C-alpha cells in the first residue's frame, strides 16, 4: 500500500522505485503542478498536481463536486488557474488558449458529448480533423474502428443515441491525433452496458500511441481501465497510486473523505464530511 507524498517533479517518491513500467528519469507527457482554480469565490481546486506518462491511462475519480471536471477543463484551457502550471512534454502551456492546446495535442472529449448537433456525423469528424496533428488517425480510420458510423455518416448528430454520440465525440477527438486524450465523464447519462462497450474500445485507441487522462464517477469502471489513479475530494488529492496497489477500503476512504484519511497535499486540517 502506498501513501504517496505527491511532490512535484520530485524523484524520491516511492512510486518511482516500485515502477517497472515507468523509469525514474522519464519526463511526464502531461504535468500539472499546484493548480488552484476558483469558481467565483469558491475554491474548486486546491494546489492539485499530477503527472501522466506516455501510454498511461490516468484516471481521476471522486464524488460530485470534488473538482474532477474542473481539473480536466483547466488542463484543456477552459478554466483559468489562479496559480499553478500545466506542461505538455515539458513545454509550458499554462497561458495558452484552449484551441492552441488542442492543436498542440491536448484534446478533450467534453462532458455531455457536446457534438455539433446540426452537423452530420461525418461533418463532426471533419471539424475535428481540421486542425489535426499528423498521425495515424483519419476519418477513414475512425470508420474502420467503428463500422456502424460509416453507414450513418450523413445522419444529423443530434439524432443519435447517447452512446452513439459518445462514440462520435471520441472519434472527433481521435482524428485530431492528440498526444493526450482527455475524457470527461464518459459514463454520464449512459446505460452501464453501453459504458462498458465504450471503455472496451480503449485498448484499440491506446494501441496507436495515445495517452489518456480520464475523469470518471464510476469508480469500478475507472479501476478496470486505469493504469494509474488519483482521487479528489473538495478540490484536494486524497489518494494517488496504481489500481493494483490500493485496496478497496482505501479508495472508499479517499472517495468519501472518511476520518483518518490524510489529504494530499494537505492544508493540515482534518478532513471532514463534506457539507
Amino acid at each position: 500500500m502506498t501513501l504517496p507524498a505527491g511532490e512535484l517533479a520530485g524523484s524520491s517518491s516511492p512510486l518511482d522505485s516500485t515502477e517497472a513500467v515507468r523509469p525514474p528519469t522519464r519526463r511526464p507527457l502531461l504535468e500539472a503542478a499546484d493548480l488552484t482554480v476558483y469558481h467565483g469565490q469558491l475554491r474548486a481546486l486546491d494546489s492539485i498536481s499530477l503527472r501522466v506518462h506516455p501510454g498511461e491511462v490516468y484516471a481521476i475519480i471522486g464524488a460530485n463536486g470534488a473538482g474532477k471536471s474542473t481539473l480536466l477543463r483547466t488542463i484543456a484551457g477552459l478554466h483559468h488557474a489562479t496559480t499553478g502550471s500545466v506542461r505538455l512534454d515539458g513545454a509550458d502551456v499554462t497561458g495558452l488558449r484552449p484551441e492552441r492546446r488542442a492543436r498542440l495535442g491536448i484534446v478533450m472529449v467534453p462532458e455531455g458529448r457536446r457534438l455539433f448537433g446540426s452537423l452530420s456525423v461525418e461533418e463532426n469528424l471533419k471539424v475535428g480533423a481540421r486542425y489535426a496533428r499528423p498521425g495515424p488517425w483519419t476519418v477513414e480510420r475512425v470508420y474502420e474502428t467503428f463500422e456502424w458510423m460509416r453507414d450513418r455518416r450523413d445522419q444529423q448528430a443530434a439524432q443519435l443515441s447517447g452512446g452513439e454520440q459518445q462514440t462520435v465525440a471520441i472519434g472527433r477527438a481521435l482524428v485530431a491525433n492528440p498526444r493526450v486524450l482527455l475524457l470527461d465523464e464518459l459514463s454520464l447519462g449512459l446505460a452501464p452496458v453501453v459504458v462498458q462497450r465504450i471503455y472496451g474500445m480503449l485498448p484499440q485507441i491506446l494501441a496507436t500511441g495515445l495517452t489518456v487522462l480520464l475523469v470518471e464517477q464510476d469508480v469500478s469502471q475507472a479501476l478496470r481501465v486505469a493504469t494509474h489513479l488519483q482521487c479528489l475530494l473538495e478540490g484536494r488529492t486524497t489518494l494517488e497510486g496504481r489500481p493494483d496497489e490500493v485496496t478497496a477500503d482505501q479508495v472508499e476512504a479517499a472517495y468519501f473523505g472518511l476520518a483518518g484519511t490524510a489529504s494530499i497535499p494537505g492544508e493540515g486540517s482534518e478532513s471532514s464530511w463534506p457539507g
Partner: protein
Amino acid sequence: MAWVNAIIQGLLTGGLYALFACGLSLMFGVMKVVNLAHGDLAVVGGYLAVGVITVTHIPVLWSFVVVVPVMAVVGYALQRTLIQSALNRGILTTLIVTLGLSMVIENALLQFFSADTRGIGAGMTLVTGSVRLGSQIELPYLLLLIFAVAVAVLLGLQYFLSGSSYGRLIRAVADDREAAQLSGADYRHVFGIAAALALGTVALGGVAYGMYQNLDPTAGTDTILLFAFVAVVIGGLGSLWGTLAGGIVLGVAQQIGAQINISDELLAGYLVFLLVLVLRPQGLFTRRASS
C-alpha cells in the same frame, strides 16, 4: 390590375428586405448577437457608395465592388474589437454597446451629411423602366435586379455554409462554441468572419436601398433594422431562406396596406408581424426548434 402589380412589387421588395435580414440572422445564429447598429452600417455602406461614385466615377452599379469588401473588413474589425469585448461581458452589454454604436453612427452621419436624403442614381432606365408581361403587368427593372441579387447572395451563403469546409466550421461554432475550441478552432476569428459576411451583405442592401429609395441618416434604424428584424421573425429564426420568405410576406403586406390606404403601408407590415408573433412565434419556416 393595380393589385396584381402591387403584390408583384411587394414580392420583389422582399428581395431587398432579405438582403437586410440575412446578415442579422447570421450574426444571431452564429454568436447570439443582435447588432442594433446593423441597419446603420447598411446606411454607411450606402453613403460610402455615394462617396466612391463621386470620387472615382465608376459606374453606379459597380460601386458594390468597393463597398462590400470594405464593409466586410469593417465588420470583422468591429467584431474582433468592440463586439467581442461586449460579448465577454454579457448579452446586456452587447445590446448597450451596439445601441451606442447605432446612435453614434446615426448622429455622425447627421452631422456630416445633414438630414437631407441622398440617392444613388442608378440611371433612368433602370430606376423607372420595367419588364412588361402582357399589357398590364409590370416588373420594375431595379427591383428585379435587386431580387436577383438577393437570391444570388442567399444561394452563395447557403453554399458556403453547407458546402465548404469553413462554412462547416462556422456552423460548428454556432452549435457549440466551446466544443469547437476543443477541436482547435479559434471562435473569435470565426465570429469575425460571420460578422464580415453579415456586414458585407447588409452593405449591399444599403447600396440597393440607396438606389431604390433615398438614403437618410436615420434610415438605418427607422427602416432597415426594423424591416430586417420583421423579416427574420416572420420567416423564422435560424432559417436563411426564411429571411427571403419573411421579406416577401412583409413586402406584400405593405403593398396591400398601401392599396387600402396609402398611409397604412408601414402599419400593415407591422400588423402582420404582430400577427405572426401571436399565432406562430417560431416563424413560418423554422427548421429547428427555437430555443
